[in-house]
């Protein structure tokens, strides 16, 4: 366990090295919520309080994009020859990948915590138990996304292919979810895909914890189950693929 904690500590420290990226992400959140969110909520006529709905979605969406960053770091490490150093350490592959996934989720959480705190202050913290459940679920979601990112990165072992797939995935995963708009307003095919998207459940669970109108949200129990399955699947897959693929170089 202490070795996993060491891996987590190391990855958390790397968050501080990428200060400019963090500052830009914060700025992105502020512009999205402060300009785009306000403007679009003025246009929306079918739903009261769309602005809060949207702001909550942007918070979770940004947690997703920070958690995905772990995969890009793996390629930077492969480029710098750092992977072989990690493999030489007295730590099992399993501990390494679990530590990295946990750290990825924690980084995303730490990064968004000031914005979440300010948002909670503005709208008022309501039921602490519900909020705790939602924050735990958000962390679980970010943990799962880190696992997904590691799984893809190590599975592909090609920086270019990873870049292309993540670019495409990023664009569609957000728009094919309830991060920006409720399921009720999506046409059939878009709604069908959104129902399989863990980002939909993570954002709806966060909204449920802040007492948003349940009419526009997924069932919180279902959301919890989906998130648990998601994080277990991708971290299990990440461990297996990481253990097999990390050896022997051949990074492209």
């Amino acid at each position, binding site marked *: 366990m202490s070795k996993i904690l060491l891996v987590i500590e190391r990855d958390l420290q790397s968050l501080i090295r990428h200060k400019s990226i963090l500052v830009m992400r914060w700025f992105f959140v502020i512009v999205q919520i402060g300009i785009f969110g306000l403007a679009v909520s*003025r246009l929306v006529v079918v739903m009261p309080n769309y602005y809060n709905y949207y702001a909550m979605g942007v918070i979770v969406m940004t947690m997703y994009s920070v958690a995905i960053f772990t995969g890009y770091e793996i390629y930077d490490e492969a480029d710098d020859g750092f992977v072989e150093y990690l493999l030489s350490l007295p730590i099992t592959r399993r501990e390494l990948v679990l530590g990295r996934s946990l750290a990825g989720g924690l980084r995303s959480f730490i990064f968004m915590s000031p914005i979440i705190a300010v948002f909670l202050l503005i709208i008022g913290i309501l039921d602490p138990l519900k909020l705790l459940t939602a924050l735990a679920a958000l962390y679980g979601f970010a943990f799962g996304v880190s696992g997904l990112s590691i799984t893809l990165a190590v599975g592909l072992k090609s920086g270019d292919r990873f870049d292309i797939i993540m670019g495409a995935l990023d664009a569609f995963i957000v728009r094919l979810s309830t991060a*920006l708009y409720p399921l009720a307003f999506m046409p059939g095919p878009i709604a069908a895909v959104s129902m399989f998207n863990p980002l939909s459940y993570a954002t709806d669970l966060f909204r449920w914890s802040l007492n948003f109108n349940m009419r526009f949200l997924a069932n919180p129990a279902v959301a919890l189950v989906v998130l648990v399955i998601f994080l277990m699947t991708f971290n299990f897959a990440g461990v297996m693929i990481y253990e097999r693929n990390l050896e022997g170089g051949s990074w492209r």
Partner: protein
Amino acid sequence: MAGLISMNLADLLIMAVVYTKMVSFNYFKFVAPGIVAVGLFAAAFVIGREVNNETRKGYNQYLLSLPIRRFELIIGRMIAGGARGLIYAIPLLVLAMWILTFPSVTQLGLIIFAMFLLGMGISGLAISLAVILRSFERFTTARSLIYLLLIFCSTVFYPLAVLQQLFGGILVIFAEANPLSTVSDLLRGYLMGTPPVTFFSWTELLLFSTVFILAGAGLYSLAIERSV
């Protein structure tokens, strides 16, 4: 580029389709010209990263050794930046025309000219940034800032009237002067009939492009000489 294409298509074919059901007008038709402008902008800006890489890695010395005059090199890169943006945006334009209406030959010519002008202006802006901010990290930070400001403080995704209702002062002035707003509204004017295309819109676009083409060319010529 794959990420860029995905984002533009996802914005138009998913986000705009859903928002159309949530607002009181045809948002899908409204945003289509805006997506064309965003696509053009992002593709034309790519030259900035390339110039920044070349400046940092000493590639400029190789370019200077080629049997090409300085001004030919500079003009060539500016035109290439604009052309690249235009080539990338043409499929999006065709999609927008298919959604809205096919313009007359004259209007189409004017649309392509406006897009090429924007592309060259954006390339000039990107090259200016790339040579001023030699550090890759500073360049990517500035680029992200510019992306955010130009895309979200514009009429790409919402009418100017909404920004005027919500904000005042400098943000609205920025949105009005924003070349992405100008080209989005020009495209709407030619493809939808509203807002009307005015002489002022063309003047704004010409002014932006001229300033940044000259700035980009001037700064690039200084940068490549300085690196020797």
